[in-house]
């Protein structure tokens, strides 16, 4: 019963990988923009702005991605009165989701920079934004690379959730193949292996970066 799992089926799975990667990349880009904004809002002197950013983060970290996806998907349908294509909804939902997590990571990196650096920059007559741009963000950026890459790995795995609303990426392709071949015990391990192949190099990169940054920081002991 059902098709046998052969090269054709395997290629179908492979062809879904670009969707997974594209979605992850798109969400990371959108999330980076949102995240930077959120991170800065978390440290500005204005309290209402800080609360706004905190509320955003709490909301997106305190609810399941799946729910966020549904709300975005149906919310967009409501706003634009038509059946929305999966892509914009999924991209938007994952961008907002990434933005919250990246915002938290980057805020942590910014706060890891000693006060003294802010003072030194301020005493050179630099404005708040210039202090951020020339002195704080370059240093915070370096620290934030390992946890950011770690999040990227999680994101790639989380894109599998998009399968639930029918978006065709790797997991959905796996479901479709299972439906035609009735061989979940072959299809899903292969899908898992493919995710592993996508994520593992990134994890290695993150670990190497982490080690390199630890070594560089060993020279100065401010942290």
């Amino acid at each position: 019963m059902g098709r046998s799992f052969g090269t054709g089926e395997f290629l179908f799975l492979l062809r879904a990988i670009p969707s997974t990667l594209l979605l992850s990349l798109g969400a990371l880009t959108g999330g980076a923009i949102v995240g930077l904004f959120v991170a800065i809002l978390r440290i500005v002197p204005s309290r209402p702005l800080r609360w706004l950013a905190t509320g955003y983060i709490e909301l997106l970290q305190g609810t399941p991605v799946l729910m966020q996806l549904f709300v975005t998907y149906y919310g967009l349908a409501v706003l634009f009165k038509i059946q929305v294509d999966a892509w914009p909804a999924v991209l938007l939902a994952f961008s907002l989701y990434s933005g919250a997590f990246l915002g938290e990571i980057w805020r942590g990196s910014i706060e890891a920079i000693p006060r003294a650096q802010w003072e030194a920059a301020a005493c050179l007559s630099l404005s708040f934004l210039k202090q951020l741009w020339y002195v704080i963000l370059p240093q915070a950026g370096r620290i934030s690379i390992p946890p950011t890459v770690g999040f990227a790995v999680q994101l790639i795995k989380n894109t599998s959730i998009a399968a639930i609303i029918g978006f065709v990426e790797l997991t959905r392709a796996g479901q479709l193949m299972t439906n035609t071949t009735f061989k979940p015990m072959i299809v899903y391990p292969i899908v898992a292996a493919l995710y592993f192949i996508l994520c593992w190099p990134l994890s290695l990169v993150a670990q190497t970066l982490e080690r390199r940054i630890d070594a560089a920081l060993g020279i100065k002991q401010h942290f």
Partner: protein
Amino acid sequence: MNYVFQFNVVWDHLPELLEGALLTIQLSATAMALGLVVAVVCAYGKSAGPRPVRWLVPVIGLRLTANTAALVAMTVNLGAYASEIVRAGIEAIPHGQVEAARALGLKRLQIFRFIIIFPAVKTVYPALTSQFILLMLSSSVVSTISAVELTAITNSLASTTFRSFEFYFVATGLYLAMALGFRAGLSAIYWAVFQRSRAA
């Protein structure tokens, strides 16, 4: 926009949603408890036994109910992540403590129970809390294997009433409430277990 929001439909079905939330809480709490045990055991016997224990259950192919299967999957998954967290906490215990305990003649299991695991869990409690809440949120995915919890119930209600946006919006709110509730509850547990001054 000529879409009329009809949240009263959601209100009519609130009991079902709350029942779903309760199922989510039960599922998550059980997985947390079991997963923590698994984590501690794994962290303790990290040198003993092969890692692939987590691959065993699906291979065995037990015929489980959807909710039980969900529970097993969540427990195993949490156990994996949590064992790493707990292991980090264990490694943070100064060796001097273990040496002193051994010099006092305590047996290995006693040392683990009194000297190691308690301070270790206390240290990594924030990280564990985050992992637990993540677990509760990711329980929404088990709806895909037909387990019955909040997301599954929301799905079926949304598809029968065609009020998708309203239902998912409210369900999201329920999850947020649960997340905040779990955080408060876990804080209370921390306070009760770790903060009460103990007679020496």
